[in-house]
């Protein structure tokens, strides 16, 4: 293994030791695992009341859950919690100098911290999304198993997993960089959250300067528009009028992520230790 690879492994090892299963990260686990609990309640309730409303309806139910909760809340704020602290947390706790005093290229340090954060986020949220998808229709029994294992369910599950992974990678890069650049990355996170939620109302060229735009293009299920007066707003919020092909969306997201990380690496190269003393 080359020196750079050994150093990268060293950073990842230390970061995982520090970030996985820590008490102060309880709310990130709550955000990730919360939907599992809700879907379990849904399944148990449906079993108890013998409600079998068809696999399509449960598929729509999960599509709504994934768009509203996973994309706009859970994964977004989970990534804020995990990634914004990778550098800012070290600054606040006055431990950043230990890293800066090692003969590791700052670019490698950024990459190592990013990979460790991404590993935590991807494991938590992808597992949660996949298990939630499986649980949401579990009460349907053989019909759901058939849907998941032999029908379109498997593809849907895979696309949700890919979307969750890309969301963690994309938001992770944004919040890691925010943690490097801003004293209070929460303000930056709030601005990004507003921007991401305003996305449906933006002109097409501005929509593309976001993470959510690409993620929505990857979603396997478009929600049906409910009849009534609220239909237009619902359609605006939940469906992408000008979707990008899935492969292009995924590639676009990876490219955007790489660009943001490159900028973070350049910033880290210039960074000084300033604990505000």
């Amino acid at each position, binding site marked *: 293994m080359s020196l750079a690879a050994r150093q990268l492994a060293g950073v990842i090892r230390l970061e995982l030791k520090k970030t996985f299963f820590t008490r102060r990260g309880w709310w990130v686990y709550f955000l990730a695992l919360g939907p599992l609990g809700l879907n379990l309640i849904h399944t148990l309730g449906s079993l108890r009341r013998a409600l079998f409303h068809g696999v399509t309806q449960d598929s729509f139910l999960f599509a709504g859950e994934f768009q509203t909760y996973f994309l706009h809340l859970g994964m977004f704020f989970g990534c804020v919690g995990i990634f914004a602290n990778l550098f800012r947390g070290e600054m606040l706790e006055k*431990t950043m100098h230990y890293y*800066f*005093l090692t*003969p590791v290229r700052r670019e490698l340090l950024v990459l190592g911290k990013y990979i460790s954060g991404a590993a935590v986020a991807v494991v938590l949220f992808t597992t949660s999304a996949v298990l939630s998808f499986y649980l949401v229709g579990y009460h349907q029994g053989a019909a759901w198993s058939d849907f998941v294992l032999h029908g379109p369910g498997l593809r849907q599950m895979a696309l949700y997993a890919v979307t969750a992974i890309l969301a963690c990678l994309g938001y992770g890069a944004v919040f890691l960089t925010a943690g490097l650049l801003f004293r209070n990355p929460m303000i930056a996170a709030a601005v990004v959250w507003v921007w991401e939620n305003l996305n449906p109302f933006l002109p097409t060229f501005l929509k593309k300067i976001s993470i959510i735009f690409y993620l929505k293009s990857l979603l396997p299920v478009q929600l049906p528009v409910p009849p009534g007066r609220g239909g237009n707003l619902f359609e605006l919020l939940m469906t992408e009028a000008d979707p990008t092909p899935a492969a292009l969306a995924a590639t676009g997201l990876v490219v955007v992520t790489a660009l943001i990380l490159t900028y973070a690496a350049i910033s880290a190269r210039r960074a000084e*230790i300033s604990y505000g003393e």
Partner: protein
Amino acid sequence: MSNRLITFADVSRFYGEVLGINRVNLAIPPGITSLVGPNGSGKTTLMNLMTGLIRPTKGDIRVLGIKPSHTEELCRVVGYCAQFDAFPKGLTGYQFVHSFLRIRGMSAAECDERTQTALQTVNMVDAAHRHVAAYSKGMRQRIKLAQAIAHDPQVIVLDEPLNGLDPMARAETIELFRKWGAAERHVIVSSHILHEVDRISDQVILLSQGYVVAEGQIHGVRSEVKDQPMQILIQCDHPHALAARLFQQDHVVEAKIHPDGKGILLRTKDADRFYLLLNRIILEGGLEVESVAPADDDVNSVYQYLIGGEGGAV
């Protein structure tokens, strides 16, 4: 030669409009160098600059010929025990030292060996597998020191390294500094404990309000302070007679009989003339001199003359 020195050439560092250090020129040779000065005098800024944690606003720094902007190269030869009493969460002392060695790219076996050696050096083997959060202040100080020296650096920079150490640990740590200094390493120490600085330093750098006010071997620095008469303690059998002779000299400002009646504390504006005179008196006979020693060429006195205030104490 410059590859053995730490050099600062006209270095200034400002934090916004606040002065950190200004127009510093230094050439620090191997050995123990103490940075002395009141809070806010620029000691930590100087240390952060030579370890590459911050960059100068102006000027050029070289550490054994390496520019601090070449951080990868610099960090192989420098170990820095910073003043911050903070550690990555959830690690034991052993993991703390070991993890940062792994980040350097060393193999697990080499890290194990170096961690053990560093822990033995600071006498922390027994507590190595306890969480750092459960350590006392002195233990935290020692584990930081272990982490700073584990990669066997040529330049060891230590910001207030004796803080929180009990007398035994303090004596052991000072002995370590001496050993490193004798091995031709650079040991840069900042400390408020001036009598200890005095005991261990090969050279001192006195800082005040961001400026270097004096540097060099402490005796040399003292002799440069011309406006303060030199104090000399002479122990002899006839102090009154000696005092009478000395009072006839125009360079003698003051001569006090020592409380034990067996010596004189003299203040003179010209130490060289005094020593010549004393030699003559001794040769003339009638005076038995037991000892002659400067009484104010220690760091504490120089600090008071140049910077003012009480200096520092334990």
